[in-house]
């Protein structure tokens, strides 16, 4: 709370004598930022209402001559698009749940339990943070093909599920939970595991929201790994579907735009619902 008050004072003090001039300038600057951020998306949304030749028509025209719902109707009526969306959504939910489970269990152990080799194991986990995806791309491919996982859901869900970054993030949160809570729970007869289930899990909502959305986004937006490992068109994920659509049906731009809008919609909606938690979480304590 103290921070907000400080900020308000800050806001007041920066209002100089010629505040109206600055206020207008700030309004203009802010509008430019908002436009720059949202304009490409607005353009995509509007292009979805255009006929196929109209999207990059010469001379250029921002709004369609006739607003057409056909593209949205047509892409939604396409069973392959719907199947891809549903399949990607299912995979993303599965990936998110798996990732939250696996990483929070490990985070709890590293934050709250004492065990032999804890330090060594923790260093191993953290070291994996610094291995860039590109370095292990080919050998990961060899591994999943040896495990007979190519062209299955498992190849999309399993390899990224355990993540040192996520263990680290949730562990930081668990370290901040006062140990007196745990002691009280133990007095009530909880053991270490029931403490996790009945005490830590209910408290985990804030990190779970942020990490869950991060995992969902990661899955939903991934492209390179799916194009390497998924080959049957009926198992494509949505980004792969869009990229293939673009190269194979390159004239149907209105339809492609409508598809892109629909493919971006779930994650944008998810973000708008949880924006307060996500934005509120972006802080860098201890960086000064």
């Amino acid at each position: 709370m103290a921070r907000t008050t400080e900020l308000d004072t800050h806001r007041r003090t920066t209002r100089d004598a010629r505040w109206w001039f600055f206020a207008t300038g700030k309004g203009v600057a802010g509008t430019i930022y908002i436009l720059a951020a949202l304009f490409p998306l607005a353009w995509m949304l509007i292009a979805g209402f255009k006929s196929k030749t109209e999207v990059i028509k010469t001379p250029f025209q921002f709004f369609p001559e006739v607003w057409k719902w056909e593209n949205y109707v047509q892409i939604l009526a396409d069973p392959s698009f719907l199947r891809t969306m549903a399949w990607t959504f299912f995979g993303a939910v599965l990936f998110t749940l798996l990732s939250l489970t696996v990483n929070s269990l490990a985070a709890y152990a590293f934050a709250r339990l004492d065990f032999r080799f804890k330090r060594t194991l923790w260093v191993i986990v953290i070291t994996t943070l610094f291995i860039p995806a590109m370095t292990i791309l080919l050998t990961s491919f060899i591994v999943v093909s040896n495990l007979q996982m190519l062209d299955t859901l498992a190849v999309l869900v399993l390899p990224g599920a355990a993540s040192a970054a996520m263990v680290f993030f949730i562990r930081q949160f668990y370290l901040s939970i006062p140990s007196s809570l745990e002691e009280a729970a133990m007095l009530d007869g909880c053991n270490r595991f029931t403490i996790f289930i009945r005490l830590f899990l209910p408290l985990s909502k804030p990190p779970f929201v942020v990490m869950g959305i991060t995992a969902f986004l990661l899955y939903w937006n991934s492209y390179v790994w799916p194009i390497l490992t998924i080959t049957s068109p009926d198992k494509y994920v949505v980004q792969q579907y869009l990229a293939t659509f673009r190269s194979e049906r390159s004239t149907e731009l209105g339809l492609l735009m409508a598809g892109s809008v629909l493919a971006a919609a779930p994650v944008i909606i998810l973000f708008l619902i949880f924006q307060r938690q996500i934005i509120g979480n972006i802080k860098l304590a201890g960086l000064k």
Partner: protein
Amino acid sequence: MTGRIMVHQAVHDSVVIDARGASNADDKREQRRRHDRHRYRDSKLAYVLILPAMVLLGIFVIWPAIYATFLSFQDWSFYKPPVFVGLKNYADVLADPLFLDAIVRGFIFVLLTVPPMLVLAFFFASLVVSVARRFAGVLKVSIYVPTIVSTVITSIIFVLIYDYSGGLLNWFLAQFGVAPTAWIGDPAWALVAIAVPAIWLGMGLTSLIMVAAMIDVPIEYYEAASMEGANWRQKTVYITLPQMKNVLLYLLVTGFVVAIQQLDLPLIMTNGGPVNATMLPNLFIFTHFRNDINVGYSIAAALLLFAVLGSVSAIIFRFVNSERLVD
């Protein structure tokens, strides 16, 4: 529970006393064993809890990393058994002018994306901390929306905006009498054309980190400066920038690491063309993976480039987490 704490305290005390007294080696060993048994009483549960994460990391990260290191010293393809060739792959990579070009291009790409992004984000943050809270909220949400849109969709949008005859950009510039340019078809412009969507995608996080850092600058400094009659520019140069030095450094280095690893945008927008103008390091390696049967070469290139980046990331991590890495 209190009982347990007392036991723990007792064991702890006895160890301390024993260390002071240092009477008997056997005694000490016995004490230590009891202490360990108490200290590691949760071992079994802990191993069960970390097992899933360790197994997944082991199979999909640690083993591939070890395997990649091994393969980088081998002459190997999918069709023949590996033969040890020592550092030959590394030597080949370092002698390859195409790889070195890709690295140089990577640095140019960093210059095209990171400084503009930091400057834009700095102005954005200055704006956010000085406007009414409601407007600040709208600004923060808007700037973050592009971050969650996928690179594939971003690429599709920008390729169409850059279109030579029907694209928005050339139409807009024509209003000012500028002749149309084939933005992603012209080797002189292609890298710049890819830098713009990269900035667009990366602005959200950079800006919000800057806002968070700027809010943390003590307000008293500004109040004192205002009393001395300092203007916005002076406050920025003498208070805000020095106070944010660490955050700026952090953003500079993470920006570098992210930009030099850019893969999706050039892959989807131009596939490295025209005439390699957008062949960034990661795309170079990725293209090799797909086309070159000599796997060791690609892996050596990836390892070479990312040994450096991995170390850079490790340094940033230490810096951010100076006291919390190992408790």
